């Protein structure tokens, strides 16, 4: 009899470290100041956005440069639900998810006809259409945008500090939920198919995997998560406009940068990438536009020197996996050779 294990020594260490990190981060309101909480919450949203984009592009091979469509959609849904329907902001974030998934279905029907570069451009066009539509909604400020009414923000929690804690924990919980869902997905049967598609689409098809169906599932799921994170981002910003909500720079270019330098097609990649991105941003932001030049140079160097990203480099050299995704065949000693165990 042979057994199959998911965990390796590195993944046991990885899971333990992630567990400790989660506890430390959950306690951040007690050890960090306001700036720290705000920064961490922003880091979380980028980890989530990049992880979702990684699932889409890194695993399913759907290189979208239009995920800002769903970030903006989520943001606008939050404002619409809170301002027009008086829904509690947290409830509005939860509603943004299913609506994001719902919107992803007809969008997919349209753009799945396109392949490769045409698909990428198609997603961007869709996002621009969304931006133009948003600027037509005059009750939400039209082209110039709108702020979340102070009364509704204040009503969220008894004090300003409580509200800030609430939003921080919400960001942490949502990001953990996004990552947890992705890990669960990758460990499932669909994950097996998805990893196969990542590695070789032709072989995946020829081995009985319905590639289009899996891609559609991933696209819709990503729409769900991205819209929720989008709503969260604009709850933190308290102001929305078509240009900020559907910004290709903020919600796609930076996200691609993060995923590519961290390691595309690996679940750990976006986390590593986000850390690198924020370290660079915090240390280089004073340099003005030079900071973007340096970031571009870093991206080029990483792509040339480590095309599988920083985590890809480490994982291949040491055979590490931070999360137990692999299925390893463990050979039990054969029955006729009892006691032969190393």
């Amino acid at each position, binding site marked *: 009899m042979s057994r*199959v294990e998911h965990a390796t020594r590195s993944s046991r260490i990885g899971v333990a470290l992630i567990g400790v990190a989660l506890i430390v981060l959950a306690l951040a309101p007690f050890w960090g100041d306001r700036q720290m909480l705000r920064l961490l919450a922003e880091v979380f949203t980028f980890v989530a956005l990049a992880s979702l984009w990684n699932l889409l592009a890194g695993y399913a091979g759907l290189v979208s440069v239009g995920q800002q469509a769903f970030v903006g959609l989520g943001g606008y849904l939050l404002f619409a639900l809170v301002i027009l329907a008086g829904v509690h902001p947290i409830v509005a974030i939860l509603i943004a998810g299913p609506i994001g998934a719902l919107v992803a279905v007809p969008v997919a029907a349209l753009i799945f006809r396109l392949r490769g570069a045409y698909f990428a451009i198609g997603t961007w066009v869709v996002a621009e259409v969304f931006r133009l539509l948003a600027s037509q909604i005059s009750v939400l400020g039209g082209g110039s945008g709108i702020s979340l009414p102070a009364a509704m923000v204040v009503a969220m929690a008894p004090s300003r500090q409580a509200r800030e804690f609430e939003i921080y924990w919400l960001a942490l919980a949502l990001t953990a939920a996004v990552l947890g869902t992705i890990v669960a997905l990758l460990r499932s049967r669909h994950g097996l198919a998805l990893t196969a598609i990542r*590695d070789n689409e*032709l072989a995946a*098809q*020829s*081995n*009985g995997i319905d590639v289009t169906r899996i891609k559609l599932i991933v696209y819709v799921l990503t729409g769900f998560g991205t819209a929720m994170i989008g709503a969260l981002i604009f709850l933190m910003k308290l102001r929305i406009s078509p240009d900020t909500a559907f910004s290709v720079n903020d919600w796609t270019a930076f996200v691609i940068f993060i995923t590519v330098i961290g390691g595309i097609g690996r679940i750990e990649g976006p986390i590593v990438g986000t850390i690198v991105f924020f370290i660079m941003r915090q240390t280089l932001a004073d340099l003005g536009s030079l900071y973007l030049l340096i970031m571009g140079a870093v991206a080029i160097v990483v792509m040339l020197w480590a095309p599988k990203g920083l985590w890809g480099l480490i994982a291949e050299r040491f055979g590490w996996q931070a999360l137990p995704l692999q299925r390893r065949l463990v050979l039990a000693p054969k029955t006729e050779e009892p006691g032969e165990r190393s």
Partner: protein
Amino acid sequence: MAPILALENISKRFGAVVVADGIGLALAEGEALGIIGPNGAGKTTLFGIATGTVAPDAGRVIFAGQDITRLPPERCCRLGLARSFQVPQPFSGMTVFENVVVAAAFATGASEASVYEPCADLLDRCGLMAKANQRAGGLTLLDRKRLELARALATKPRVLLLDEVAGGLTEHECAVLVRLIKDVRAGGVSIIWIEHVVHALLAAVDRLLVLHGGKFIADGDPRTVIRSPQVAEIYMGIAADA
């Protein structure tokens, strides 16, 4: 008896190049059939057409009485039509074991856990057990070819299409491979084998076809076909040009 796999009047051209010109082919259940032909004769394209990765310009593909001409590759695979690729196409980031598990689970619809045991046995049969937990991308060419075969077998095929699995193998490795293929066939799988390593082919097939210029120009007993003047002309002609 109706053939298990039949190509009827298949035509395909890529631009001005005709790779199939009204090809007909019938594989009987349990038969092992070999195809030879010069490079670029359209052998691999024929497999692509049979398994749904290449759409023919005309003609039909019939598998077990069902028209599968327009069926996507994953459906062909699930019906029991497996294919190995000439250039191995492993899931390079996954382990050897995972590669086989993917094929076994998705081709048959079986649950993942239920295929672990048969997949381990299969790796053993194909000489890959020691490398079960290695990344497939790091394998040598020989092991990639073994994996290609193991993965095709994991789909539990009724018909197995082998595309140059013996190329680059040593004499001994080749003999092991031929034994494995004969073994698979003895298990009731019908086989079409495209191969340049003619002696390996002759050891395993009962009928040999020669593809040239988009047509089969010879069909019959392997040893007779290989000595036929048409075959001599094609291969000698090519040798003279080179």
